[in-house]
Protein backbone atom coordinates (compact mmCIF):
# COMPACT_ATOMS: atom_id res chain seq x y z
CA UNK A 1 0.00 0.00 0.00
CA UNK A 2 2.84 2.31 0.86
CA UNK A 3 4.42 1.62 -2.49
CA UNK A 4 1.16 2.44 -4.28
CA UNK A 5 0.96 5.77 -2.50
CA UNK A 6 4.46 6.67 -3.52
CA UNK A 7 3.87 5.78 -7.15
CA UNK A 8 0.67 7.80 -7.17
CA UNK A 9 2.26 10.94 -5.77
CA UNK A 10 5.20 10.44 -8.09
CA UNK A 11 2.77 10.24 -10.98
CA UNK A 12 1.04 13.39 -9.81
CA UNK A 13 4.30 15.34 -9.69
CA UNK A 14 5.20 14.02 -13.12
CA UNK A 15 1.85 15.10 -14.59
CA UNK A 16 2.21 18.48 -12.92
CA UNK A 17 5.64 19.03 -14.49
CA UNK A 18 4.41 17.91 -17.88
CA UNK A 19 1.43 20.27 -17.59
CA UNK A 20 3.78 23.13 -16.77
CA UNK A 21 5.74 22.29 -19.91
CA UNK A 22 2.50 22.29 -21.93
CA UNK A 23 1.17 25.52 -20.46
CA UNK A 24 4.35 27.55 -20.17
CA UNK A 25 4.57 28.96 -23.74
CA UNK A 26 0.88 29.90 -23.65
CA UNK A 27 1.36 31.51 -20.28
CA UNK A 28 4.39 33.30 -21.66
CA UNK A 29 2.28 34.86 -24.42
CA UNK A 30 0.03 36.35 -21.74
CA UNK A 31 2.98 37.37 -19.60
CA UNK A 32 4.69 39.17 -22.48
CA UNK A 33 1.51 40.90 -23.59
CA UNK A 34 1.12 42.37 -20.09
CA UNK A 35 4.74 43.32 -19.50
CA UNK A 36 5.69 46.92 -20.35
CA UNK A 37 8.72 47.44 -22.61
CA UNK A 38 11.09 48.26 -19.72
CA UNK A 39 10.39 44.87 -18.18
CA UNK A 40 11.14 42.80 -21.27
CA UNK A 41 14.87 43.17 -21.65
CA UNK A 42 17.41 41.94 -19.19
CA UNK A 43 15.23 39.48 -17.34
CA UNK A 44 11.48 39.28 -17.83
CA UNK A 45 9.66 38.58 -14.57
CA UNK A 46 8.01 35.18 -14.31
CA UNK A 47 4.92 36.94 -13.04
CA UNK A 48 3.91 40.02 -15.03
CA UNK A 49 2.92 43.26 -13.34
CA UNK A 50 -0.63 42.41 -12.40
CA UNK A 51 -2.46 45.10 -14.26
CA UNK A 52 -5.74 44.61 -15.98
CA UNK A 53 -5.70 41.43 -18.04
CA UNK A 54 -8.31 43.00 -20.31
CA UNK A 55 -5.58 45.40 -21.45
CA UNK A 56 -4.87 42.72 -24.03
CA UNK A 57 -7.90 43.95 -25.92
CA UNK A 58 -6.36 47.39 -26.24
CA UNK A 59 -4.70 45.90 -29.30
CA UNK A 60 -7.90 46.74 -31.17
CA UNK A 61 -7.19 50.44 -30.73
CA UNK A 62 -3.57 50.32 -31.93
CA UNK A 63 -2.24 50.83 -35.46
CA UNK A 64 -2.23 47.10 -36.01
CA UNK A 65 -5.23 46.29 -38.23
CA UNK A 66 -5.97 43.16 -36.20
CA UNK A 67 -9.71 43.53 -36.59
CA UNK A 68 -9.49 43.43 -40.39
CA UNK A 69 -7.03 40.51 -40.28
CA UNK A 70 -9.36 38.52 -38.04
CA UNK A 71 -12.29 39.31 -40.31
CA UNK A 72 -10.32 38.04 -43.33
CA UNK A 73 -9.33 34.90 -41.44
CA UNK A 74 -12.95 34.36 -40.46
CA UNK A 75 -14.10 34.63 -44.09
CA UNK A 76 -11.61 31.98 -45.19
CA UNK A 77 -12.38 29.81 -42.16
CA UNK A 78 -16.16 29.88 -42.71
CA UNK A 79 -15.74 29.32 -46.44
CA UNK A 80 -13.48 26.32 -45.86
CA UNK A 81 -15.88 24.92 -43.27
CA UNK A 82 -19.01 25.19 -45.41
CA UNK A 83 -17.53 23.96 -48.66
CA UNK A 84 -15.74 21.04 -46.98
CA UNK A 85 -18.68 20.08 -44.82
CA UNK A 86 -21.18 20.04 -47.67
CA UNK A 87 -19.02 17.66 -49.69
CA UNK A 88 -17.95 15.63 -46.65
CA UNK A 89 -21.51 14.96 -45.47
CA UNK A 90 -22.59 13.71 -48.88
CA UNK A 91 -19.43 11.67 -49.46
CA UNK A 92 -19.35 10.36 -45.90
CA UNK A 93 -22.92 9.15 -46.28
CA UNK A 94 -22.20 7.53 -49.63
CA UNK A 95 -19.11 5.76 -48.29
CA UNK A 96 -20.85 4.67 -45.13
CA UNK A 97 -24.04 3.30 -46.61
CA UNK A 98 -23.32 2.02 -50.09
CA UNK A 99 -21.04 -0.37 -51.82
CA UNK A 100 -20.07 0.80 -55.25
CA UNK A 101 -17.43 0.42 -57.88
CA UNK A 102 -14.36 2.49 -57.02
CA UNK A 103 -15.15 2.76 -53.30
CA UNK A 104 -11.77 1.29 -52.33
CA UNK A 105 -9.93 3.65 -54.63
CA UNK A 106 -11.75 6.65 -53.21
CA UNK A 107 -10.99 5.55 -49.64
CA UNK A 108 -7.33 5.13 -50.52
CA UNK A 109 -7.22 8.49 -52.29
CA UNK A 110 -8.64 10.18 -49.19
CA UNK A 111 -5.85 8.68 -47.07
CA UNK A 112 -3.22 9.46 -49.70
CA UNK A 113 -4.01 13.18 -49.56
CA UNK A 114 -2.47 13.13 -46.08
CA UNK A 115 0.88 12.31 -47.65
CA UNK A 116 0.92 15.21 -50.08
CA UNK A 117 3.12 18.08 -48.96
CA UNK A 118 1.32 21.42 -49.37
CA UNK A 119 4.67 22.84 -50.44
CA UNK A 120 4.60 20.54 -53.49
CA UNK A 121 0.97 21.14 -54.52
CA UNK A 122 1.18 24.85 -53.94
CA UNK A 123 3.47 25.16 -56.97
CA UNK A 124 1.01 23.84 -59.58
CA UNK A 125 -1.92 25.33 -57.63
CA UNK A 126 -0.27 28.73 -57.88
CA UNK A 127 0.02 28.28 -61.64
CA UNK A 128 -3.58 27.05 -61.91
CA UNK A 129 -4.99 29.88 -59.78
CA UNK A 130 -2.93 32.40 -61.69
CA UNK A 131 -4.59 31.36 -64.94
CA UNK A 132 -8.03 31.33 -63.27
CA UNK A 133 -7.45 34.76 -61.74
CA UNK A 134 -7.88 33.34 -58.23
CA UNK A 135 -4.65 34.63 -56.75
CA UNK A 136 -4.90 37.46 -54.24
CA UNK A 137 -8.45 36.57 -53.26
CA UNK A 138 -10.23 34.67 -50.51
CA UNK A 139 -11.90 32.21 -52.88
CA UNK A 140 -8.52 30.81 -53.92
CA UNK A 141 -7.57 30.32 -50.27
CA UNK A 142 -10.85 28.58 -49.52
CA UNK A 143 -10.45 26.27 -52.51
CA UNK A 144 -6.86 25.38 -51.62
CA UNK A 145 -7.52 24.76 -47.93
CA UNK A 146 -10.62 22.72 -48.72
CA UNK A 147 -8.55 20.40 -50.91
CA UNK A 148 -6.32 19.50 -47.98
CA UNK A 149 -8.76 19.29 -45.10
CA UNK A 150 -11.98 18.05 -46.69
CA UNK A 151 -10.74 14.40 -46.82
CA UNK A 152 -10.27 14.45 -43.04
CA UNK A 153 -13.87 15.60 -42.64
CA UNK A 154 -15.10 12.84 -44.98
CA UNK A 155 -13.47 10.21 -42.73
CA UNK A 156 -14.93 11.72 -39.58
CA UNK A 157 -18.43 11.95 -41.01
CA UNK A 158 -18.22 8.48 -42.54
CA UNK A 159 -17.21 6.79 -39.31
CA UNK A 160 -19.87 8.70 -37.37
CA UNK A 161 -22.51 7.50 -39.82
CA UNK A 162 -21.11 3.96 -39.68
CA UNK A 163 -22.17 3.82 -36.06
CA UNK A 164 -25.77 4.90 -36.74
CA UNK A 165 -27.90 1.72 -36.69
CA UNK A 166 -29.03 0.83 -40.14
CA UNK A 167 -32.57 -0.02 -39.00
CA UNK A 168 -33.36 3.59 -38.12
CA UNK A 169 -32.68 4.65 -41.67
CA UNK A 170 -34.52 1.69 -43.12
CA UNK A 171 -37.63 2.42 -41.06
CA UNK A 172 -37.71 5.97 -42.35
CA UNK A 173 -37.27 4.81 -45.92
CA UNK A 174 -40.18 2.38 -45.54
CA UNK A 175 -42.27 5.25 -44.17
CA UNK A 176 -41.64 6.97 -47.47
CA UNK A 177 -39.02 9.54 -46.52
CA UNK A 178 -37.05 10.44 -49.62
CA UNK A 179 -33.38 9.56 -49.68
CA UNK A 180 -32.07 13.09 -49.16
CA UNK A 181 -34.68 13.52 -46.43
CA UNK A 182 -33.21 10.54 -44.63
CA UNK A 183 -29.84 12.21 -44.82
CA UNK A 184 -30.97 15.63 -43.60
CA UNK A 185 -33.63 14.55 -41.08
CA UNK A 186 -32.04 11.42 -39.61
CA UNK A 187 -28.39 10.91 -40.41
CA UNK A 188 -27.18 14.49 -39.93
CA UNK A 189 -28.88 14.98 -36.53
CA UNK A 190 -27.62 11.60 -35.32
CA UNK A 191 -24.08 12.30 -36.48
CA UNK A 192 -24.25 15.88 -35.17
CA UNK A 193 -21.54 15.61 -32.48
CA UNK A 194 -19.02 14.33 -35.00
CA UNK A 195 -20.10 16.87 -37.59
CA UNK A 196 -19.58 19.58 -34.99
CA UNK A 197 -16.12 18.20 -34.25
CA UNK A 198 -15.34 18.14 -37.97
CA UNK A 199 -16.52 21.75 -38.24
CA UNK A 200 -14.08 22.85 -35.54
CA UNK A 201 -11.21 21.11 -37.31
CA UNK A 202 -12.22 22.61 -40.67
CA UNK A 203 -12.75 26.08 -39.28
CA UNK A 204 -9.36 26.26 -37.63
CA UNK A 205 -7.62 24.81 -40.64
CA UNK A 206 -8.82 27.86 -42.56
CA UNK A 207 -8.28 30.19 -39.61
CA UNK A 208 -4.68 29.01 -39.09
CA UNK A 209 -3.70 28.75 -42.75
CA UNK A 210 -0.37 30.39 -43.35
CA UNK A 211 1.25 28.76 -46.37
CA UNK A 212 -1.46 29.48 -48.95
CA UNK A 213 -2.35 32.84 -47.43
CA UNK A 214 1.21 34.10 -47.49
CA UNK A 215 1.86 32.82 -51.00
CA UNK A 216 -1.37 33.73 -52.80
CA UNK A 217 -2.26 37.04 -51.17
CA UNK A 218 -0.25 40.09 -52.21
CA UNK A 219 -2.48 42.96 -51.09
CA UNK A 220 -1.86 43.77 -47.39
CA UNK A 221 -5.55 44.66 -46.95
CA UNK A 222 -6.36 41.02 -47.65
CA UNK A 223 -3.83 39.52 -45.25
CA UNK A 224 -5.12 36.85 -42.91
CA UNK A 225 -4.28 37.23 -39.23
CA UNK A 226 -1.68 34.46 -39.54
CA UNK A 227 0.20 36.39 -42.22
CA UNK A 228 -0.18 39.67 -40.36
CA UNK A 229 1.20 38.11 -37.19
CA UNK A 230 4.07 36.48 -39.08
CA UNK A 231 4.94 39.92 -40.51
CA UNK A 232 6.02 40.91 -36.97
CA UNK A 233 8.82 38.36 -37.08
CA UNK A 234 12.15 40.13 -37.45
CA UNK A 235 10.44 43.51 -37.23
CA UNK A 236 11.40 45.74 -34.31
CA UNK A 237 8.89 48.57 -34.50
CA UNK A 238 5.72 47.12 -33.01
CA UNK A 239 5.91 46.76 -29.21
CA UNK A 240 6.07 43.13 -28.12
CA UNK A 241 3.09 43.63 -25.83
CA UNK A 242 1.03 44.58 -28.89
CA UNK A 243 2.38 41.67 -30.93
CA UNK A 244 1.45 39.17 -28.23
CA UNK A 245 -1.90 40.78 -27.53
CA UNK A 246 -2.69 40.33 -31.21
CA UNK A 247 -1.45 36.74 -31.08
CA UNK A 248 -3.66 36.04 -28.05
CA UNK A 249 -6.74 37.53 -29.68
CA UNK A 250 -6.02 35.29 -32.67
CA UNK A 251 -5.42 32.23 -30.47
CA UNK A 252 -8.29 32.47 -27.98
CA UNK A 253 -11.06 31.26 -30.33
CA UNK A 254 -9.02 28.14 -31.11
CA UNK A 255 -8.38 27.40 -27.43
CA UNK A 256 -12.04 27.87 -26.52
CA UNK A 257 -13.40 25.63 -29.26
CA UNK A 258 -10.77 22.90 -28.97
CA UNK A 259 -11.20 22.63 -25.22
CA UNK A 260 -14.99 22.79 -25.34
CA UNK A 261 -15.18 20.16 -28.05
CA UNK A 262 -12.16 18.01 -27.18
CA UNK A 263 -14.19 14.86 -26.50
CA UNK A 264 -16.02 15.00 -29.83
CA UNK A 265 -12.90 15.98 -31.76
CA UNK A 266 -10.90 13.12 -30.31
CA UNK A 267 -13.57 10.53 -30.92
CA UNK A 268 -14.00 11.89 -34.44
CA UNK A 269 -10.29 11.78 -35.17
CA UNK A 270 -9.67 8.40 -33.57
CA UNK A 271 -12.51 6.66 -35.35
CA UNK A 272 -11.74 8.51 -38.55
CA UNK A 273 -8.01 8.40 -38.95
CA UNK A 274 -6.86 5.78 -36.54
CA UNK A 275 -9.11 2.88 -37.36
CA UNK A 276 -8.53 3.98 -40.95
Amino acid sequence: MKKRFFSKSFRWVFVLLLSLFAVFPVYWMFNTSLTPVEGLFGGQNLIPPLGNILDIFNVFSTDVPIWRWLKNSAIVAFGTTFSSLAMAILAGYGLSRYRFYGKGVLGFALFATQMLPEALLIVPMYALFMSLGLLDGFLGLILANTAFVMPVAVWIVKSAMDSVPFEIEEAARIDGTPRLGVLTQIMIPLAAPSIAAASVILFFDGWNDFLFASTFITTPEKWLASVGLASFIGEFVTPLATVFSAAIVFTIPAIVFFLLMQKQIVSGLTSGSVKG
Partner: protein
Amino acid sequence: MAKLKREIIVGESRIYPYFFVSFATIYLILFTSIPLLRGFWYSFTDSLLLNPREGKLVGTKNYKELLDNPEFYNSLSKTIIYATLVVIGSVALGTIAAIAINEKLPGRALFRSLLTLPWAIPGVSVVLVFIWIYNYDSGVANQFSSGLGFGQKGWLIDPSLGMFSVTLASIWKVFPFIMLVVLAALQSVPEELREAARVDGADRLNIFRTVVLPHLIPTLRIVSLLMTIWSIRRFEIIYLLTGGGPSGATNNIVINVYKLAFENSELGKAAALGILGLLLSITVTLIYFFIDKRQEKN
Protein backbone atom coordinates in the same frame (compact mmCIF):
# COMPACT_ATOMS: atom_id res chain seq x y z
CA MET B 1 -23.97 -5.02 -41.76
CA ALA B 2 -22.91 -6.16 -45.20
CA LYS B 3 -26.18 -8.01 -45.59
CA LEU B 4 -28.21 -4.98 -44.58
CA LYS B 5 -26.25 -2.83 -46.94
CA ARG B 6 -27.27 -5.07 -49.78
CA GLU B 7 -30.93 -4.50 -48.98
CA ILE B 8 -30.70 -0.79 -49.53
CA ILE B 9 -29.24 -1.32 -52.95
CA VAL B 10 -31.69 -3.94 -54.13
CA GLY B 11 -34.40 -2.47 -56.28
CA GLU B 12 -32.92 0.97 -56.26
CA SER B 13 -31.03 2.95 -58.79
CA ARG B 14 -27.31 2.34 -58.62
CA ILE B 15 -26.67 5.97 -59.39
CA TYR B 16 -27.21 7.21 -55.83
CA PRO B 17 -23.87 6.28 -54.29
CA TYR B 18 -22.11 7.98 -57.15
CA PHE B 19 -24.23 11.06 -56.68
CA PHE B 20 -23.26 11.23 -52.99
CA VAL B 21 -19.53 10.85 -53.51
CA SER B 22 -19.35 12.77 -56.79
CA PHE B 23 -18.82 16.27 -55.36
CA ALA B 24 -15.90 15.29 -53.16
CA THR B 25 -14.44 13.11 -55.91
CA ILE B 26 -14.62 15.77 -58.59
CA TYR B 27 -13.20 18.29 -56.16
CA LEU B 28 -10.24 16.09 -55.34
CA ILE B 29 -9.62 15.43 -59.03
CA LEU B 30 -9.69 19.15 -59.83
CA PHE B 31 -7.74 20.50 -56.88
CA THR B 32 -5.52 17.59 -55.86
CA SER B 33 -5.01 15.08 -58.68
CA ILE B 34 -4.65 17.57 -61.51
CA PRO B 35 -2.23 19.83 -59.60
CA LEU B 36 -0.30 16.71 -58.62
CA LEU B 37 -0.06 15.60 -62.26
CA ARG B 38 0.83 19.11 -63.32
CA GLY B 39 3.51 19.19 -60.66
CA PHE B 40 4.82 15.93 -62.03
CA TRP B 41 4.83 17.46 -65.50
CA TYR B 42 6.57 20.64 -64.33
CA SER B 43 9.30 18.52 -62.78
CA PHE B 44 10.41 17.60 -66.31
CA THR B 45 10.35 21.19 -67.59
CA ASP B 46 12.32 24.38 -67.09
CA SER B 47 9.18 26.34 -66.12
CA LEU B 48 9.58 29.58 -64.23
CA LEU B 49 7.17 31.01 -61.69
CA LEU B 50 5.99 33.94 -63.79
CA ASN B 51 5.20 32.00 -66.95
CA PRO B 52 4.57 28.43 -65.80
CA ARG B 53 2.93 27.43 -69.07
CA GLU B 54 5.86 28.36 -71.26
CA GLY B 55 8.32 25.88 -69.83
CA LYS B 56 10.11 23.52 -72.23
CA LEU B 57 10.54 19.83 -71.60
CA VAL B 58 14.05 19.17 -70.37
CA GLY B 59 13.78 15.48 -69.55
CA THR B 60 15.28 14.43 -66.26
CA LYS B 61 17.61 17.43 -66.07
CA ASN B 62 16.00 18.81 -62.89
CA TYR B 63 16.29 15.48 -61.12
CA LYS B 64 19.90 15.04 -62.24
CA GLU B 65 20.85 18.50 -61.02
CA LEU B 66 19.16 17.90 -57.69
CA LEU B 67 20.77 14.50 -57.19
CA ASP B 68 24.21 15.86 -58.13
CA ASN B 69 23.94 18.68 -55.62
CA PRO B 70 25.00 17.95 -52.02
CA GLU B 71 22.27 20.36 -50.87
CA PHE B 72 19.69 17.70 -51.76
CA TYR B 73 21.33 15.16 -49.46
CA ASN B 74 21.54 17.80 -46.75
CA SER B 75 17.83 18.56 -46.99
CA LEU B 76 16.99 14.86 -47.19
CA SER B 77 18.94 14.14 -44.02
CA LYS B 78 17.38 17.17 -42.27
CA THR B 79 13.94 15.92 -43.23
CA ILE B 80 14.66 12.43 -41.90
CA ILE B 81 16.34 13.67 -38.71
CA TYR B 82 13.52 16.11 -38.00
CA ALA B 83 10.80 13.53 -38.64
CA THR B 84 12.58 10.86 -36.57
CA LEU B 85 13.11 13.17 -33.60
CA VAL B 86 9.58 14.54 -33.68
CA VAL B 87 8.00 11.10 -34.02
CA ILE B 88 10.07 9.53 -31.23
CA GLY B 89 9.72 12.56 -28.97
CA SER B 90 6.01 13.11 -29.44
CA VAL B 91 5.01 9.44 -29.38
CA ALA B 92 7.06 8.81 -26.23
CA LEU B 93 5.86 11.94 -24.46
CA GLY B 94 2.27 11.54 -25.62
CA THR B 95 2.12 7.89 -24.59
CA ILE B 96 3.67 8.50 -21.17
CA ALA B 97 1.31 11.43 -20.59
CA ALA B 98 -1.68 9.30 -21.59
CA ILE B 99 -0.67 6.47 -19.26
CA ALA B 100 -0.05 8.93 -16.43
CA ILE B 101 -3.49 10.53 -16.63
CA ASN B 102 -5.44 7.43 -17.61
CA GLU B 103 -5.98 6.41 -13.99
CA LYS B 104 -7.56 8.37 -11.17
CA LEU B 105 -5.51 11.37 -10.13
CA PRO B 106 -6.45 14.52 -8.18
CA GLY B 107 -7.22 17.25 -10.70
CA ARG B 108 -7.19 14.84 -13.61
CA ALA B 109 -9.74 16.69 -15.77
CA LEU B 110 -7.83 19.94 -15.35
CA PHE B 111 -4.51 18.29 -16.20
CA ARG B 112 -6.05 16.72 -19.25
CA SER B 113 -7.17 20.13 -20.52
CA LEU B 114 -3.84 21.74 -19.72
CA LEU B 115 -1.96 18.98 -21.52
CA THR B 116 -4.26 19.34 -24.55
CA LEU B 117 -3.65 23.08 -24.79
CA PRO B 118 -0.61 23.14 -27.15
CA TRP B 119 -2.56 21.23 -29.78
CA ALA B 120 -5.09 24.08 -30.01
CA ILE B 121 -2.55 26.86 -30.49
CA PRO B 122 -2.25 28.10 -34.09
CA GLY B 123 1.16 27.49 -35.66
CA VAL B 124 1.94 31.17 -36.14
CA SER B 125 1.29 31.89 -32.46
CA VAL B 126 3.50 28.95 -31.51
CA VAL B 127 6.27 30.41 -33.63
CA LEU B 128 5.92 33.94 -32.22
CA VAL B 129 6.17 32.80 -28.63
CA PHE B 130 9.00 30.34 -29.24
CA ILE B 131 11.03 32.97 -31.09
CA TRP B 132 10.67 35.17 -28.04
CA ILE B 133 11.46 32.32 -25.61
CA TYR B 134 14.55 31.44 -27.66
CA ASN B 135 15.67 35.09 -28.02
CA TYR B 136 19.42 35.29 -27.41
CA ASP B 137 19.60 38.44 -25.26
CA SER B 138 16.28 38.47 -23.44
CA GLY B 139 14.59 35.11 -23.96
CA VAL B 140 13.45 33.11 -20.99
CA ALA B 141 15.30 30.02 -22.27
CA ASN B 142 18.58 31.83 -21.77
CA GLN B 143 17.41 33.22 -18.43
CA PHE B 144 16.99 29.61 -17.28
CA SER B 145 20.13 28.42 -18.98
CA SER B 146 22.26 31.15 -17.40
CA GLY B 147 20.57 30.65 -14.06
CA LEU B 148 21.51 26.98 -14.15
CA GLY B 149 25.07 27.88 -15.03
CA PHE B 150 25.05 26.73 -18.65
CA GLY B 151 25.48 30.23 -20.03
CA GLN B 152 23.58 31.77 -22.92
CA LYS B 153 22.85 29.59 -25.92
CA GLY B 154 22.06 30.63 -29.47
CA TRP B 155 18.89 28.49 -29.64
CA LEU B 156 17.95 29.68 -33.10
CA ILE B 157 21.28 31.07 -34.29
CA ASP B 158 23.72 28.32 -33.36
CA PRO B 159 23.77 25.71 -36.18
CA SER B 160 24.35 22.89 -33.70
CA LEU B 161 21.22 23.86 -31.72
CA GLY B 162 18.82 24.91 -34.49
CA MET B 163 17.44 21.44 -35.13
CA PHE B 164 16.99 20.79 -31.41
CA SER B 165 15.08 24.04 -30.87
CA VAL B 166 12.80 23.52 -33.85
CA THR B 167 12.16 19.91 -32.84
CA LEU B 168 11.34 20.88 -29.27
CA ALA B 169 8.78 23.47 -30.41
CA SER B 170 7.27 20.91 -32.80
CA ILE B 171 7.05 18.17 -30.18
CA TRP B 172 5.43 20.63 -27.80
CA LYS B 173 2.78 21.38 -30.42
CA VAL B 174 1.97 17.80 -31.50
CA PHE B 175 2.42 15.55 -28.45
CA PRO B 176 -1.12 16.25 -27.16
CA PHE B 177 -2.56 14.69 -30.29
CA ILE B 178 -0.74 11.43 -29.53
CA MET B 179 -1.79 11.67 -25.90
CA LEU B 180 -5.47 12.03 -26.77
CA VAL B 181 -5.43 9.18 -29.27
CA VAL B 182 -3.52 6.85 -26.93
CA LEU B 183 -5.84 7.84 -24.08
CA ALA B 184 -8.82 6.83 -26.20
CA ALA B 185 -7.14 3.50 -26.94
CA LEU B 186 -6.29 2.93 -23.26
CA GLN B 187 -9.89 3.50 -22.31
CA SER B 188 -10.97 0.82 -24.73
CA VAL B 189 -8.85 -1.86 -23.01
CA PRO B 190 -11.46 -4.28 -21.63
CA GLU B 191 -11.48 -4.12 -17.84
CA GLU B 192 -12.05 -7.90 -17.64
CA LEU B 193 -8.64 -8.52 -19.19
CA ARG B 194 -6.91 -6.41 -16.56
CA GLU B 195 -8.98 -8.08 -13.88
CA ALA B 196 -8.10 -11.56 -15.14
CA ALA B 197 -4.39 -10.70 -15.13
CA ARG B 198 -4.71 -9.26 -11.63
CA VAL B 199 -6.38 -12.44 -10.39
CA ASP B 200 -3.49 -14.40 -11.90
CA GLY B 201 -1.20 -12.38 -9.65
CA ALA B 202 0.34 -10.08 -12.23
CA ASP B 203 1.70 -6.80 -10.87
CA ARG B 204 1.07 -3.45 -12.53
CA LEU B 205 4.10 -3.58 -14.76
CA ASN B 206 3.19 -7.08 -15.88
CA ILE B 207 -0.39 -6.11 -16.59
CA PHE B 208 0.89 -3.22 -18.65
CA ARG B 209 3.24 -5.43 -20.62
CA THR B 210 0.94 -8.35 -21.28
CA VAL B 211 -2.51 -6.72 -21.47
CA VAL B 212 -2.29 -3.01 -22.16
CA LEU B 213 0.69 -2.79 -24.48
CA PRO B 214 -0.51 -5.35 -27.05
CA HIS B 215 -3.78 -3.42 -27.14
CA LEU B 216 -1.94 -0.16 -27.73
CA ILE B 217 0.45 -1.32 -30.42
CA PRO B 218 -1.86 -1.04 -33.43
CA THR B 219 -2.81 2.49 -32.36
CA LEU B 220 0.80 3.46 -31.76
CA ARG B 221 1.75 2.13 -35.15
CA ILE B 222 -0.85 4.14 -37.03
CA VAL B 223 -0.25 7.40 -35.10
CA SER B 224 3.47 6.98 -35.67
CA LEU B 225 2.81 6.66 -39.39
CA LEU B 226 0.59 9.76 -39.41
CA MET B 227 3.11 11.67 -37.31
CA THR B 228 5.89 10.67 -39.71
CA ILE B 229 4.15 11.81 -42.87
CA TRP B 230 2.93 14.97 -41.17
CA SER B 231 6.49 15.71 -40.03
CA ILE B 232 7.85 15.18 -43.52
CA ARG B 233 5.42 17.78 -44.85
CA ARG B 234 5.47 20.23 -41.93
CA PHE B 235 6.35 23.68 -43.21
CA GLU B 236 5.09 26.61 -41.25
CA ILE B 237 6.75 26.08 -37.85
CA ILE B 238 10.20 25.42 -39.33
CA TYR B 239 9.98 28.08 -42.02
CA LEU B 240 8.91 30.80 -39.63
CA LEU B 241 11.21 29.81 -36.77
CA THR B 242 14.44 29.51 -38.72
CA GLY B 243 13.70 29.85 -42.44
CA GLY B 244 15.79 26.70 -42.87
CA GLY B 245 18.75 28.12 -40.99
CA PRO B 246 20.93 28.63 -39.09
CA SER B 247 23.39 27.75 -41.89
CA GLY B 248 21.01 25.20 -43.36
CA ALA B 249 20.63 23.33 -40.05
CA THR B 250 16.86 22.93 -40.53
CA ASN B 251 16.70 23.30 -44.31
CA ASN B 252 14.45 20.33 -45.04
CA ILE B 253 12.86 19.28 -48.33
CA VAL B 254 9.60 21.23 -48.14
CA ILE B 255 11.39 24.43 -47.22
CA ASN B 256 13.73 23.93 -50.16
CA VAL B 257 10.76 23.32 -52.47
CA TYR B 258 9.21 26.56 -51.33
CA LYS B 259 12.42 28.54 -51.68
CA LEU B 260 13.17 27.12 -55.13
CA ALA B 261 9.70 28.01 -56.37
CA PHE B 262 8.97 31.33 -54.71
CA GLU B 263 12.40 32.80 -54.07
CA ASN B 264 14.41 31.45 -57.02
CA SER B 265 11.34 31.19 -59.29
CA GLU B 266 12.59 27.77 -60.49
CA LEU B 267 9.20 26.08 -60.71
CA GLY B 268 10.43 23.02 -62.58
CA LYS B 269 13.20 22.23 -60.17
CA ALA B 270 10.96 22.91 -57.17
CA ALA B 271 8.42 20.46 -58.54
CA ALA B 272 11.10 17.82 -59.04
CA LEU B 273 12.23 18.21 -55.43
CA GLY B 274 8.61 18.06 -54.28
CA ILE B 275 8.14 14.78 -56.15
CA LEU B 276 11.25 13.38 -54.45
CA GLY B 277 9.80 14.45 -51.10
CA LEU B 278 6.55 12.73 -51.95
CA LEU B 279 8.48 9.57 -52.83
CA LEU B 280 9.98 9.68 -49.35
CA SER B 281 6.49 9.83 -47.78
CA ILE B 282 5.32 6.98 -49.98
CA THR B 283 8.36 4.87 -49.12
CA VAL B 284 7.81 5.41 -45.40
CA THR B 285 4.13 4.50 -45.73
CA LEU B 286 4.98 1.32 -47.65
CA ILE B 287 7.53 0.33 -44.99
CA TYR B 288 4.90 0.81 -42.28
CA PHE B 289 2.37 -1.31 -44.13
CA PHE B 290 5.00 -3.94 -44.81
CA ILE B 291 5.83 -4.15 -41.10
CA ASP B 292 2.10 -4.21 -40.35
CA LYS B 293 1.56 -7.20 -42.64
CA ARG B 294 4.52 -9.09 -41.19
CA GLN B 295 3.29 -8.50 -37.65
CA GLU B 296 -0.14 -9.76 -38.61
CA LYS B 297 1.34 -12.96 -40.00
CA ASN B 298 3.36 -13.67 -36.87
